[in-house]
């Protein structure tokens, strides 16, 4: 029974878990390893699945915790990534150096502050409801909505800049 639940409720979410881990860690190999560890963890706790309201959100929350555990252990590596990202957002803000709009937009998404990026990812890419996002991140509904509003506002502003300067045309 619990094996069946694992196969029907958790295994289909593995790609979502991977994308979420990738949005946090930014390394495909590390994201893969983290998700594989999460699957093993959930498998060991599979008896619990039947008692959980939303196994998908639960799996995503475990993924998030596992990612931040990984960050703690490999703090130096992640700081290196964050530093290089900071340089990217500055250059994007200054004069929109990237010719390719998609690359530029990807950089904008990648360089959002960690929590905003997570909320953005869960809403825009995984299409989760505000409440689910709030549950995964242990935030209030209001915090999620405000964060998403600010992120979209920032992206809209950058898009307007791009359209005004017309760099990609």
């Amino acid at each position, binding site marked *: 029974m619990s094996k069946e639940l*694992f196969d029907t409720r958790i295994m289909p979410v593995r790609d979502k878990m991977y994308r979420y881990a990738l949005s946090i860690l930014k390394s495909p190999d590390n994201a893969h390893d983290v998700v594989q560890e999460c699957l093993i963890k959930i498998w060991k706790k599979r008896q619990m699945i039947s008692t959980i309201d939303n196994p998908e959100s639960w799996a995503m929350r475990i993924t998030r915790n596992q990612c931040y555990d990984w960050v703690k252990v490999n703090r130096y590596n992640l700081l290196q990534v964050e530093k290089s990202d900071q340089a990217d957002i500055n250059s994007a803000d200054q004069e929109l150096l990237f010719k390719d709009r*998609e690359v530029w937009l990807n950089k904008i998404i990648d360089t959002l502050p960690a929590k905003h990026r997570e909320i953005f990812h869960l809403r825009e890419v995984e299409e989760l409801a505000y409440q689910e996002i709030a549950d995964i991140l242990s935030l209030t509904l209001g915090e999620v909505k405000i964060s998403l509003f600010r992120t979209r506002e920032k*992206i809209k502003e950058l898009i307007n800049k791009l359209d005004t300067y017309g760099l990609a045309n």
Partner: protein
Amino acid sequence: MDSRTKLLLEKYWRAETSTAEERLLKEQLGTVQEASAEANYFKAIDRRKQQVSEISFQHPGKRIYYWYVTIAASLVIGLLVGTGLWQRQQSSSEYTVHDPEIALELTRNALLMVSSGLNEGKDLSAYQLNQINKPKEIITNKSNSNIY
């Protein structure tokens, strides 16, 4: 872009859209052949949705099963090797003599056996050499009789 999509887009930037409305908007703008920054933004999101790991994930249940199989196979191999070594040790200990006198006697017998074998070989060699010399003698005798 039609007016309905424009309105939906405005609502989207204000973060007032529902999940269903956002899905509709992404479907419309994510597939449109438009080069606007907004369209590219939705296309970029759509590409992100398609990201999957290049290495497939192992089912943890099967992973644990493989571990059991590996452990069982290792145990069987260890058992076979252990039994083999034990048997070898047993058989070699049957031929081990601990008393020096008996060992000396056995060695002497063995050497005598080898020595008698060598003597037989010596006799045989002498006989064979004799056989080789026989034709030479015949030829020598014949040539002598021809001269006389």
